């Protein structure tokens, strides 16, 4: 890039070597030597541990025999080729494999407080999928060859373990389909006409059954692929993220418009036997704090005087 900017600093020989290390490691599906060394040092206690935990979380983690080892991460910057929707499943899948590798190298039993992140950039049709969390060791247990990945903070992780629930990973279900237009399916390819007629200007109140059942199928397939993905890791999914979109695409004069339906659902996989006991007792309490009953910050119970009133409304 020297041609653009003469003052651009040249990449040092070490940086170039690191780049090459990363490149070959990502291709082989392993980690580069310096990273392995850093994690090995953390594992053996020769380097200070690094945790995303707050002091309160550290307190509960320690009182329950969990020791932080290192912050571990997994990133995959993914280019969407033929399908944006399915790319999400694969992108998170790679990131998950990579964070597991780092956790394994750190000799961990689990990664807790795993957060799903992305940088909102607009570089072509691509997105980065990043997972970051804290690798921990449970005292008295040998390192795991298949560390679990938990999206909950250390406090909840311990709470869940006591109740016989192990959060094991992240599952993604994604599906898309076309109604009319580009669909491979013959019936769907010539679909869309009913919907066009049902949404015309003289159409009355009515459910759109063609579009509706098409959309339902897209969603069901996404959920089926979520279950399939989760079945490799545990016995259930707590699906916290749902994303769905129907996009209309005009096809020209003679043809009805086509509809693209896409659905993504993401959840935390848990492994637990059916009907496991909950050992903790639950005691009803009434909190004497005032801040969540009368204020407008929660719900709309007393929201009359919220920000909705414009400044010019009522002169006195």
């Amino acid at each position: 890039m020297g041609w653009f900017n003469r003052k651009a600093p040249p990449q040092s020989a070490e940086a170039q070597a690191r780049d090459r290390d990363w490149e070959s490691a990502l291709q082989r599906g392993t980690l580069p030597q310096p990273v392995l060394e850093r994690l090995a040092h953390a594992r053996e206690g020769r380097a200070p541990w690094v945790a995303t935990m707050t002091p309160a979380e550290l307190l509960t983690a320690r009182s329950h025999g969990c020791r932080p080892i290192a912050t571990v991460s997994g990133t995959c910057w993914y280019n969407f080729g033929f399908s944006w929707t399915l790319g999400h499943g694969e992108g998170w899948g790679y990131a998950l494999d990579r964070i597991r590798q780092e956790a394994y190298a750190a000799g961990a039993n689990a990664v807790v407080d795993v957060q799903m992140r992305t940088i909102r950039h607009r570089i072509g049709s691509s997105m980065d999928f990043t997972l970051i969390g804290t690798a921990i060791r449970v005292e008295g247990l040998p390192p795991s060859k298949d560390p679990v990945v938990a999206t909950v903070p250390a406090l909840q992780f311990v709470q869940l373990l006591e109740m016989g629930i192990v959060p094991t990973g992240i599952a993604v279900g994604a599906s898309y389909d076309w109604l009319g237009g580009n669909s491979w399916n013959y019936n769907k390819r010539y679909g869309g006409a009913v919907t066009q007629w049902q949404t015309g200007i003289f159409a009355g109140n009515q459910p759109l059954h063609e579009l509706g059942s098409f959309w339902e199928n897209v969603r069901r397939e996404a959920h089926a692929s979520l279950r399939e993905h989760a079945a490799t890791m545990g016995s259930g999914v707590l699906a916290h993220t749902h994303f769905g979109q129907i996009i209309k695409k005009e096809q020209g004069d003679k043809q009805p418009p086509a509809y693209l339906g896409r659905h993504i659902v993401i959840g935390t996989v848990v492994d637990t036997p059916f009907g496991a006991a909950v050992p903790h007792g639950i005691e009803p309490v009434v909190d004497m704090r005032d801040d969540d009953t009368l204020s407008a910050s929660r719900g709309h119970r007393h929201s009359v005087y919220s920000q909705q009133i414009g400044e010019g409304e009522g002169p006195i």
Partner: protein
Amino acid sequence: MAEQQIPQHALERLKGLRTQGHAGGIFTSDFSVNEFLLVRKAGFEPVGLCVGSCIYHLGFQFAGWGSNVELEQLSLAMYEARALAMERMRLEATNMGADGIVGVRLTVKRLEWDKNILEFVAIGTGIVHAKGHQGFKGPNGQPFTSALSGQDFWTLLSAGYRPLEMVMGSCVYHVARRGPFATMSSIGQNVELGNFSLALYEAREIAMERMQLEASKAGAEGVVGADLHEGSHNWSTHVIEFFAIGTAVLPIEGHQSDDIPDPKLVLSVNS
């Protein structure tokens, strides 16, 4: 926190000894961790996410310029669309053998490319009683539906009630415009706009009545978590929808109110 033992199966999983594989029965749910624990504590297990949706095309209805009147076709449409979404959700629950659905959220979304098309979605988690108790089913042996969160579900059962069915009522109402003389006469005056007050009363009353009627049809003793939403779905400024929704409940037989522990008063010092 009392010292608790981590169960053996959990320890084995942490050692990486046990390989998983539950190709058969995998449950899905949108519970938070606390909701999951409380539903378990109440004696239930999640089986699967139940979703029902209805994409609906809204037509139009004219109303007289100066009349306070319910737009019955629109009321019916708004109700029918939600009822279809809920019924489809309940069908999914029946198919997976659930005793009921908790945490139902009913949402309305306008599609970006057509202002007359609304998407109604009902989503909740289907649950079964862990010991196969059949007494929690809703009306006609169908799964019950409820808008209660996992926390509210546990608390409702502790209060000696069980959820039956989500009940709702909708009323789309046209609020009359005021004539020129009425407008003139109120210039500079602090006065009540009587016909506007009346319209809101009327519309709210109709929506609540319809919800109550549904509850009595379901054989309920009462309705908890009742809420009234006022909304305009891209209609003209004088058209509003009142939508009442709540969970119809029935007492659990043999539950005494003496069984309910007195809540302890606490004051958290860390918030």
